[in-house]
């Protein structure tokens, strides 16, 4: 994503957070992003909130298969003859 303006507004910055975290911004845009973060308390907190969000989402557990469904699949596997 390219950023046309010289300086980012906060409203523009929040749309670039994922690109920033994914390393998808150009070096110039990365510099502009970090320059803004360095001067803006609100955006510093916003970026931190996004990082924390990613962290807590990562702690959610993956829903397991029901025992019945797993048993059915294992039965299918037993019935399956390797060619």
């Amino acid at each position, binding site marked *: 994503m390219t950023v046309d303006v010289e300086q980012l507004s906060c409203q523009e910055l929040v749309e670039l957070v994922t690109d920033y975290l994914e390393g998808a911004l150009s070096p110039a845009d990365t510099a502009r992003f970090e320059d803004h973060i360095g001067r803006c308390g609100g*955006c510093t907190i916003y970026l931190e909130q996004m990082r924390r969000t*990613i962290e807590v989402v*990562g702690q959610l557990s993956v829903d397991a298969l029901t025992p019945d469904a*797993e048993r059915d699949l294992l039965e299918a596997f037993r019935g399956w003859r390797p060619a």
Partner: protein
Amino acid sequence: MAQAAAAEAQLLDRLRAGDESAFRALVREYNPSLVRVARIYVSTQAAAEEVAQETWLGVLNGLSRFEGRSSLRTWIFRILTNIAKTRAVRDGRTLPFSALSDPGRVPEAAVDADRFLDPEHPRWPGHWALKPEAWPEDALIAAETRERLAEAIEALPAAQRAVISLRDIEGWSSEEVRNALDLSETNQRVLLHRARSKVRAALESYLDQP
């Protein structure tokens, strides 16, 4: 990378030899993601679970012919996608192609516009009108916060839910998600951005309540 390929070759040998524990481990590892991805195409959780079950049968059927030109994971997800699309057509469901191929068509703001000053504001255009506040650490790890978080993810459009689940819950790389869902790099990022932004907003509105 070479290590992963070797581990996969070993797993394939065990599966082909009829090793049940290898199959069980594979199912446990991938089934939750298969169900989430299936939900992009079919309308109910039950239908998605059936599609995942059918996918495993398809995997067994194709295992002897699998040549390893793609990774095992990519191959399994291709089977899933085909079955899910067929199922969606049978159920008379319009495929949400636009959700995957053109997610940026409809603009969505990461943060409500009314949180910012006017873009024409003389002094601070587009600056925070209402700044975010740092979150209390203890609230963030509370069980109830997790419930809200899970609800926020469940409420996402299916394509966004699939991408955030694979990336952030299951820890896949963006390339793995792109391959499994057949997404462009940009579209993967747009879906991830929207999903994460909405989940953050949901957390904020929950944690900001006094």
